[in-house]
């Protein structure tokens, strides 16, 4: 978190929003479901951000069978891989150690866990190590790019193989990792007797991206898993997991909240709304009044879906969302803390916008609303700055977002 105490806006230490701090960005997210009837998934997708976000290593491990046993096997495999990487052991070496140490099923002669390791750097250098999972997909400019894989074997590995690919990613590339629960979904059903299949799953991913090229990694993973579940007739026939690594320009969200301490800066603060290069959210009644006045714009409220916890959202030209301030932000903090939005309201919408972004720049006006200090109010309203700091910390630690704070 960059905390700029003294100065907001372009004169501050923060880079202006138009030139985001992070040139390119590795967005990683995943979605998964446990095999029907199991509490735990035997697939694991874990990632670690290293070298200050310049490098991300992700592992998809699929433990043999399903349930607790599979979950333990996958968990051991994924944690070993990430621990080695953390100890500065080269990923190639880590993959080889896994091949050496994974127990092998005596009957089927396959590893107790399959794995895929993606070692992606922000400068584009990418290495992939695959053992046993469906082949990863590399999607570039809406099409599949075939990977050149070197197949490695060792006498002590028996007939098990490690496939290694190394390439230079371009901005916009997506690497899609799926467990066999995705590609084999629907197997044995009349519609898909042989299962969905890798080409069909890939075609589905491409068709969704053709429709919405800006899909977040989380959403694309969800779509693939949902479709696999559909193939299985609504009850997962195997653990279904999809993880996606996306190298791209960061999406910047500016959150404008609070009236500037000095009214002389109202105009400068309002001008942030029209700075290109980012989406904007406004939180606060007084704040939105200031922007409406300075920019000569209407704020329209939609009362169609009242919520008893959070005041209804409103709309303003050039802004994604306008909300009430203190209550909504406190609720956003609660939702982020809980890891889920139990209701659909202005706060859940704001959480969605935050999670869809990579860099979140909080532009915080520090004037204290005197009416909020009135002892007649039945609830205690936290100081805006504190709520924002809590939200920023949750975004950084739980969601690996980059956050910036500027005060006005």
């Amino acid at each position, binding site marked *: 978190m960059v905390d700029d105490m003294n100065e907001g806006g372009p004169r501050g230490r923060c880079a202006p929003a138009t030139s985001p701090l992070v040139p390119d960005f590795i967005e990683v997210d995943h979605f998964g479901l446990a095999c029907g009837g199991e509490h735990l998934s035997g697939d694991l997708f874990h990632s670690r951000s290293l070298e200050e976000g310049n490098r991300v290593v992700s592992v998809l491990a699929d433990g043999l069978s399903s349930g607790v046993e599979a979950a333990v096997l996958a968990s051991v495999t994924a944690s070993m891989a990430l621990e080695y990487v953390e100890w500065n052991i080269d990923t190639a070496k880590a993959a080889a150690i896994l091949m050496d140490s994974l127990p092998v099923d005596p009957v089927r002669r396959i590893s107790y866990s399959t794995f895929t390791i993606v070692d992606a750097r922000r400068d584009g250098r990418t290495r992939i190590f695959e053992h046993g999972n469906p082949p990863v997909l590399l999607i570039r400019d809406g099409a599949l790019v075939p990977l050149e894989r070197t197949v490695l074997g060792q006498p002590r590995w028996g007939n098990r193989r490690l496939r290694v690919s190394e390439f230079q990613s371009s901005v916009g590339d997506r690497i899609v990792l799926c467990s066999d629960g995705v590609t084999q979904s629907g197997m044995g059903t009349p519609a898909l007797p042989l299962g969905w299949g890798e080409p069909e799953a890939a075609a589905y991913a491409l068709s969704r991206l053709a429709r919405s090229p800006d899909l977040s990694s989380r959403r694309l993973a969800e779509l693939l898993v949902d479709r696999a579940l559909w193939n299985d007739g609504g009850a997962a026939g195997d653990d279904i997991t999809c993880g996606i690594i996306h190298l791209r320009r960061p999406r910047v969200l500016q959150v404008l909240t609070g009236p500037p301490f000095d009214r002389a800066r109202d105009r400068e603060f309002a001008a942030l709304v029209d700075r290109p290069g980012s989406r904007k959210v406004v939180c*606060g*009644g*007084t704040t*939105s*009044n200031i922007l409406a006045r300075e920019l000569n714009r209407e*704020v329209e*409220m*939609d*009362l169609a879906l*009242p919520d*008893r916890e959070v*005041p*209804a959202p*409103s709309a303003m030209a050039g802004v994604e969302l*306008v909300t*009430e*301030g*203190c*209550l909504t932000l406190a609720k956003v903090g609660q939702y982020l803390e809980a890891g889920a939005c139990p209701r659909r309201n202005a706060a859940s919408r704001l959480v969605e916008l935050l999670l869809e972004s990579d860099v979140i720049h909080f532009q915080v006006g520090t004037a204290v*609303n*005197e*009416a*909020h200090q*009135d002892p*007649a*109010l*039945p*609830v205690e*309203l936290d100081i805006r700055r504190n709520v924002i700091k809590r939200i920023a910390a949750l975004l950084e630690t739980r969601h690996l977002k980059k956050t910036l704070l500027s005060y006005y």
Partner: protein
Amino acid sequence: MEPVTVTICMGTACVVMDGSRLVLLEEHLPERLRGLVRIRGERCLDLCTRRSAALAPFVLVDGEPLANATFESIVLRIEERLAGRA
């Protein structure tokens, strides 16, 4: 006849002073007023800072502020407006 416009403040102070319920005004209108009232929300009317938060929640009935607004007091004010026009 031009409907009476009720503007409900959805600012923080008004909401915590039980103004959040007021968005359901439509359901609380007596039968005779149905169709004669237009209800809209406002992000913040800024009346708590200009007057007192103790007077929240605020609404505007045809632009006239009403403090400590309740369903009953709003209905009463709407009826006064309609009677005044007649």
